[in-house]
């Protein structure tokens, strides 16, 4: 079959998928395309004059890709990417397929890639820039344990073409080790603000042993999860000096943050409309990625400042005359930073927590017991829980010490949303902490009510 015919068939699948109401057709066309033309990713990506940038991580890949896209938009570059969150091989293929029909042609590919899909995507895409941000415990039932992912990533790095620019998080020991183990030059990023420090490693911290020698790691400063200024207690491994480093992070409540970043090209500063320390990491990673793409620093500052939230990631919606913020919380490290971010709101807290256990969430819900929800308890005014495993979440809070009669369990997400919003005093914000499919479900309700945009219209 010719290339043109293959592309046409695959595009028809996308239109059908959309018409049948099966989501945005963000994966199916790519699946078909790869069946009938296995080399499609190599072929289509080779046409991009600026090549591709790939971001992978347990947490923050969607937002970071969005921040880089915003910098490229300031540059006036035509970007092709998988912004709808379809981040497996088929999603990348679909994005390339959609881009191949666009005129004028896209110049650069920007892909956020699932951590386990990274090996096959990187092998086919041969990215010009590969950004690896963090590894946290995520869906153990789907992915196996953290070590296995780190090993798979090490194999990816070992196979990279010599001209690929590798951008690594200096503050994540397992990620930083990828550069040292491969004996490869990398651009490191990290957070160097001495005031950005937790008192101790949180319970959910994962990389407490050296990947090189298995001895315990020690920290001079913990920023988030197991990320910070680390060194091995036995061998010579320590946090590399970052090339791109956030020298000042000022968290501004639950609405945004101000960031000053030192780069080899000079300082970059930006007010960013995304809250929390995790977004300081995302923005610093995005700045390092943008520098790797050759974007000048004034455009990077403007791009970071112009970016808004990706769907479900600190996305603010207006429901009637009340505000709600969707904060995706899909694993312990992500949920911990979400809790910390919510606590930046000085008012008594209204929370809706939605726990599903579908394939994209992970079937195993035990991770909620690794999240430090306890700091919320003295600040909670109202807690509503919902989702397939709403009662598991209720137990999590009850065994943390919350009175049983202060938890409202409503299995229907729509009923739970309405109850939580209905109870919200004027001027307050409802914080919604959903897992991935719970977030998609809640957004469907919001889209149906006309208060949020369908995510496949996102650009």
């Amino acid at each position, binding site marked *: 079959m010719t290339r043109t015919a293959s592309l046409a068939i695959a595009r028809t699948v996308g239109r059908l998928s959309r018409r049948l109401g099966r989501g945005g057709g963000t994966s199916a066309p790519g699946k078909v395309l790869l069946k009938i033309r296995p080399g499609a990713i190599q072929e289509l990506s080779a046409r991009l004059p600026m090549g591709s940038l790939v971001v992978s991580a347990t947490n923050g890949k969607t937002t970071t890709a969005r921040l880089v896209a915003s910098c490229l938009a300031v540059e006036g570059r035509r970007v092709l990417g998988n912004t709808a969150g379809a981040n497996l091989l088929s999603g990348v293929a679909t994005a390339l397929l959609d881009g191949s029909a666009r005129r004028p042609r896209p110049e650069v590919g920007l892909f956020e890639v699932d951590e386990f899909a990274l090996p096959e995507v990187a092998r086919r895409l041969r990215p010009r820039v590969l950004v690896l941000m963090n590894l946290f415990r995520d869906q153990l039932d789907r992915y*196996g344990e953290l070590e296995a992912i780190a090993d798979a990533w090490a194999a990816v790095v070992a196979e990279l073409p010599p001209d690929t620019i590798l951008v690594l998080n200096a503050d994540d020991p397992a990620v930083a080790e990828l550069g040292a183990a491969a004996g490869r030059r990398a651009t490191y990023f990290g957070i160097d603000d001495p005031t950005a420090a937790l008192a101790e490693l949180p319970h959910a911290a994962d990389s407490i042993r050296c990947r090189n020698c298995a001895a315990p790691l020690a920290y001079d400063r913990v920023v988030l999860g197991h990320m910070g200024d680390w060194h091995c207690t036995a061998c010579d491994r320590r946090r590399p000096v970052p090339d791109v480093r956030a020298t000042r992070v000022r968290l501004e409540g639950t609405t945004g943050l101000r960031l000053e970043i030192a780069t080899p090209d000079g300082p970059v500063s930006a007010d960013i409309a995304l809250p929390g320390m995790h977004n300081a990491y995302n923005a610093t990673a995005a700045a390092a990625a943008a520098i790797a793409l050759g974007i000048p620093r004034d455009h990077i500052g403007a791009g970071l400042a112009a970016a808004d939230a990706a769907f479900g990631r600190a996305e603010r919606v207006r429901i009637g005359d009340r505000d709600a913020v969707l904060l995706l919380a899909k694993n312990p490290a992500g949920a911990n930073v979400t809790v910390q971010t919510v606590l930046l709101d000085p008012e008594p807290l209204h929370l809706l927590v939605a726990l599903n256990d579908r394939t994209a969430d992970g079937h195993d819900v035990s991770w909620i017991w690794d999240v430090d929800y306890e700091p919320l308890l003295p600040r909670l005014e109202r807690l509503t829980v919902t989702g397939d495993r709403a009662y598991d979440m209720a137990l999590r809070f*009850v065994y943390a010490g919350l009175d049983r009669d202060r938890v409202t369990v409503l299995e229907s997400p729509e009923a739970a949303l309405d109850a939580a919003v209905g109870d919200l005093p004027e001027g307050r914000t409802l914080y919604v902490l959903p897992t991935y499919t719970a977030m998609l479900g809640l957004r469907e309700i919001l889209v149906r009510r006309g208060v949020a945009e369908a995510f496949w219209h996102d650009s």
Partner: protein
Amino acid sequence: MAVLRVCHLYPGELNIYADRGNIAVLRRRCEWRGHRLEVLEAGIGDPIPADHDLYYLGGGQDRDQLVVAEDLPATKAAALRSAMADGAVLLAVCGGFQLAGHGYTAVDGSRMPGIGLLDADTVAGPTRLIGDLVIEAELEGERHRVVGFENHAGRTTLGPGSVPLGRVSSGHGNNGADGGEGAVTGRAIGTYLHGPLLPKNPWLADTVIRWGLEHAGGAPVRLDPLEDHLEESAHAAAVARAGVRR
């Protein structure tokens, strides 16, 4: 008021399946009845006392379990054996279950020795056994359904010194073949059930608490019933889930 003294073994290394949730359940269900829970955390190299009421051993990543397997016989096995002989309780989950047995033979043939408190031996299989798990458990003649999640590559078989904790209704259990799940010898329990194990299984939680308090006081104990509506609902949701996915 009584005090239940718990020794939590390797909380830094063996904690991958939210083992602290099990400790939280032991703590609250004691406190709600006016009892107190004291937890001693013992890590690598720490010697442990033999006089505690309940010893808890969780599961970890492979590398951490190897470190633990070296440390257990050196600093803890003797005290554990003496505590078990004295009627103390052992709850060993996932990797902890394997370590409490005779040992684990990996795919490459290498052997991680256990401490033999349970008559169970584990050999790595070609695939991981993953999913919702429902069993009909039996302890002291009482039968109850117990639910959770399993995720293990090891296939465990029991010798005559242990009986299974229960029979699998849905899921894989010890080895996916003989229908057994977990192992019990006296008051030592090993199981692959996590989720964590205790929040959704109040009967099992109260059984080990009661055993622990009986060890502490040297006399039979009757626990006051608790309001368990949320626990029973979560239990039912997990059972329904296991039915749906199979």
